[in-house]
């Protein structure tokens, strides 16, 4: 699925440029970063409520291709700057984690692990 379609399905606001990302088929959902690193999911979209700088660092190491911050969270400017540097598109949605998972499940995305 195209990243733009995922963003539209979740009524996301883009916080960084979202160009040049390959299609995404898998999802990883966690606020805890150890979970994301313990079960690598390259190419996935990461749903998380953790907005600190470690969320982007973890995405880089885990080779996650996009981040969607749930529960209406807005990361601070330095976090977005790092995401821009690393070329990871970042979005925010007002949806909760369950609603976001449910919508992506219905659209046919799969779990990453």
């Amino acid at each position, binding site marked *: 699925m195209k990243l733009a379609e995922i963003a539209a399905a979740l009524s996301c606001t883009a916080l960084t440029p979202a160009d040049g990302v390959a299609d995404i088929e898998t999802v990883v959902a966690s606020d805890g*970063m150890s979970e994301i*690193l313990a079960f690598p999911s390259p190419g996935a979209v990461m749903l998380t409520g953790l907005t600190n700088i470690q969320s982007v660092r973890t995405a880089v190491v885990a080779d996650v291709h996009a981040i969607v911050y749930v529960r209406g969270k807005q990361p601070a400017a330095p976090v977005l700057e790092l995401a821009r540097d690393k070329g990871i598109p970042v979005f925010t949605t007002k949806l909760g984690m369950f609603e976001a998972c449910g919508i992506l499940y219905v659209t046919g995305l799969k779990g990453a692990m």
Partner: protein
Amino acid sequence: MSTCAHSWSMTGIRSGYLVVEGCYHCGARSSFFSTEPVAPVDEYREGAHFWEHLAGYQAVTFDLRCDSCGKTIDLSDMMGLMLSTCDDPGCEVGRLSLELGKKTSIYVALCADSSHAGGACVSDAGVKALTEYFNQRLHSRRRSIVVVPCKMCDRIDRCTGIVIADTGLTDFY
């Protein structure tokens, strides 16, 4: 005097860090809420205190607003909430817990200065509104919640209650 029965909602939700510092001279503990992107860890001197960084947790603070009458309770004097596990008859909170029994949970509203040297703590209006708010949200009616100010604790610095704060989200294990 307002006659509104108050139906509270959370408002002004602020995400940030609960930063806990200790003075290595007198053993006092102090907390503050920081909304900076990275929690500060500086040591500094303030009057007779030498504050040393002890811990930083991701946490949240908020105010309460009445949906009926619009009254807002400013809770910027509350740094966090702690579930009391105290049953010490020598502590007022412990006595309250023994008196109310196990169907009632006591949450301690934590203010910035655990030494209460200035006499200030979370306001009475704040504590009252918090108690009303959390009880209004209880659906099961099996339980009740009482919120008390941390000055009620006998020795808050030594208290073993459970602070509601996020730990471990960026720990790797």
